[in-house]
């Protein structure tokens, strides 16, 4: 064989530049500290204002700048219905506002979830003319500035009301109210529901529905026994997201509400105009906790979509 042509590699001394190595190690240590500081700064900017807000909601003083001791009286105050505010001429208590928020949120969520789920099904499962266009404009409400959407809705309602009032001048004039707020919320919520439900559906094995039909289930039975139970976590997640967005919304609500229909966000905003008060802090804290809870459940349900019978 050609053994003669091969030579053993020459054993050489291992030379390490100790000074250079030390320098490199030091740079690495500094880098580690830097990463930590970076994260610390980022989280500080994110959370410090919220932390201050939560802290001062327990402050035993009207002052928002000085810590006077711990109290829960601002919270109990909310529930005893003493805190209230004058918004656009009518006094709405915080509890009334909360009730408004919950009713509007529930109805908007219901409509948005039903419509959004149906739309997601149509987009994922069926072919129809104009599907691509519909698909791409669906996300518009997510992208366009909320203020623009709010104004366009207000304008749209005005035109509709003017037309109606013109057509029946003897009736009391149609105007903004619960209905317009709910429609406004449904409009932006549909897009979010579709995004969540659609992800779930796209993850679902289409063979499962075929298997159901193969085993003798008609379209209706297939939907209720197989499709619906498998998409349910997606639907619930979408609904929770919609409910949260509805509760937290200010701009669309403020621009499309009637006199006296104040939601929690509108009331809080009104209170804010007279300065930050401990009540506002308390309400905000409660809203933060509630939102985190809802979004948390929503994410948990979406996370479970890993188990959808694929493979």
């Amino acid at each position, binding site marked *: 064989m050609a053994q003669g042509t091969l030579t053993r590699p020459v054993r050489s001394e291992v030379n390490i530049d100790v000074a250079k190595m030390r320098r490199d190690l030091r740079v690495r240590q500094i880098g580690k500290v830097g990463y930590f500081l970076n994260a610390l700064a980022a989280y500080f900017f994110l959370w410090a204002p919220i932390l201050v807000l939560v802290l001062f909601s327990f402050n035993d003083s009207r002052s928002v700048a000085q810590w006077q001791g711990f109290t829960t009286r601002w919270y109990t105050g909310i529930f005893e219905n003493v805190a209230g505010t004058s918004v656009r001429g009518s006094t709405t208590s915080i509890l009334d506002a909360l009730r408004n928020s919950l009713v509007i949120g529930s109805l908007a969520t219901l409509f948005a979830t039903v419509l959004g789920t149906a739309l997601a099904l149509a987009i994922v499962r069926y072919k129809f003319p104009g599907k691509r266009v519909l698909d791409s404009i669906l996300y518009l409400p997510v992208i366009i500035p909320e203020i623009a959407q709010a104004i366009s809705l207000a304008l749209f309602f005005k035109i509709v009301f003017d037309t109606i009032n013109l057509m029946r001048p003897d009736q009391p004039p149609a105007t903004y109210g619960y209905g317009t707020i709910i429609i406004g919320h449904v409009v932006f919520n549909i897009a979010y529901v579709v995004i969540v439900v659609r992800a779930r559906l796209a993850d679902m094995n289409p063979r*499962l529905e*075929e*298997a*159901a039909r*193969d*085993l*003798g289930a008609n379209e209706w039975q297939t939907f209720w026994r197989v499709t619906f139970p498998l998409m349910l976590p997606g639907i619930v997640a979408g609904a929770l997201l919609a409910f949260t967005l509805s509760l937290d919304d200010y701009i669309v609500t403020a621009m499309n509400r009637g006199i006296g229909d104040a939601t929690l966000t509108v009331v809080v905003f009104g209170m804010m105009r007279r300065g930050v008060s401990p009540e506002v802090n308390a309400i905000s804290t409660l809203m933060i906790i509630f939102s985190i809870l809802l979004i948390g459940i929503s994410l948990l349900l979406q996370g479970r979509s890993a188990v959808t*019978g694929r493979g």
Partner: protein
Amino acid sequence: MPEVAVDLRHIIKEFPGQRRDVTFRAVDDVSLEILEGEFFALLGPSGCGKTTMLRMIAGFELPTSGEILLRGKAMQDVPPFHRPVNTVFQDYALFPHMTVLQNVMFGLEMEGVKKAEASRRADEALDMVRLPQMADRKPRQLSGGQQQRVALARALVKRPQVLLLDEPLGALDLKLRKEMQIELAEMQDELGITFIFVTHDQEEALTMADRIAVMNGGKVLQVGTPEEIYDTPNSRFVADFIGETVFLPGLMAGKDGEFGWVQLDGVETKIKASLAATDIAENQSVTVAVRPEKINLFPIKGKVRYPDGSSDEASEYKTALLRDPDINLVEGIIKSANYIGTDTRYTVSVGGHDIVVRIQNYGLRSDTHFEPGQHVNVFWDAETVRILVQ
């Protein structure tokens, strides 16, 4: 004569292509008669249209033209949930939100069978696939093989006239595959249900099926028993797809009944082989399909050793062989030898053609071994070699 269970008449299936004006023909004029109680395999490479065929029988796709009859009844307007056919899907498609028992009961409930009765029959079906203790588990808690059994039970509990299986063993590991192959065949024997299964695995089709339809490019190329398909392929594709084959190009030099003689380039002796088609004309260029295990070798000089230990002079052996008019005998040179345990694979150069030969190692290695560069006699029976149209 058994009745026809599934009758496919001139089935064509076209799908819309990438461009709007182009259609893709997945199934191209397929006619098949699948008999009652038969274990029938649709065999072909991926994209040959075999799964589309199965989906049309199940009712998930409708043929563009042609007719599907189940026991003589036209299925054109019958939706899948009214067809007496059930499917075992490739990925099993078990309902993940139901237990194993609920999965198996599903089909019975859809028929309107009472819960108690459905549960009893589902238990029986799970017994049959040997999974009775798994009834309360969710599908994701089962192994691939167990899921496959549940899918089988779920389909069989409906007592379908025809059971369709789409690559049923594709997702299982080799050992489990072998077991399930035997089990499926036994189960089919016992139940007498017509099984139609789709596979790209030729070995699976050969082991399990009563009859095989070999498909390629949307067409059925050959239908027959495993022996017919393997021993008498009617086209180059079938010969190539099933088993190992060496193809030798040549010219038709003459024919007589089922046999023909081919002049291979660079080989003096004319090769006698069976004809795949009787309409092959003289001087037409053809290809001779040779299976490695049908060919034999013995040295030109020295002794020929037999499995029983006895031996003969090579020259005497050759004279004896040549007395048989059906024996083809040519000389060649061993190019390479690969020892693979049970056999040794030789590549033998015959007049410039490389022929692969598999020799079983029946004795000690020295008995049957040939060295590269050695001159050998190569012979085979004319019946085992096919003349195919180029």
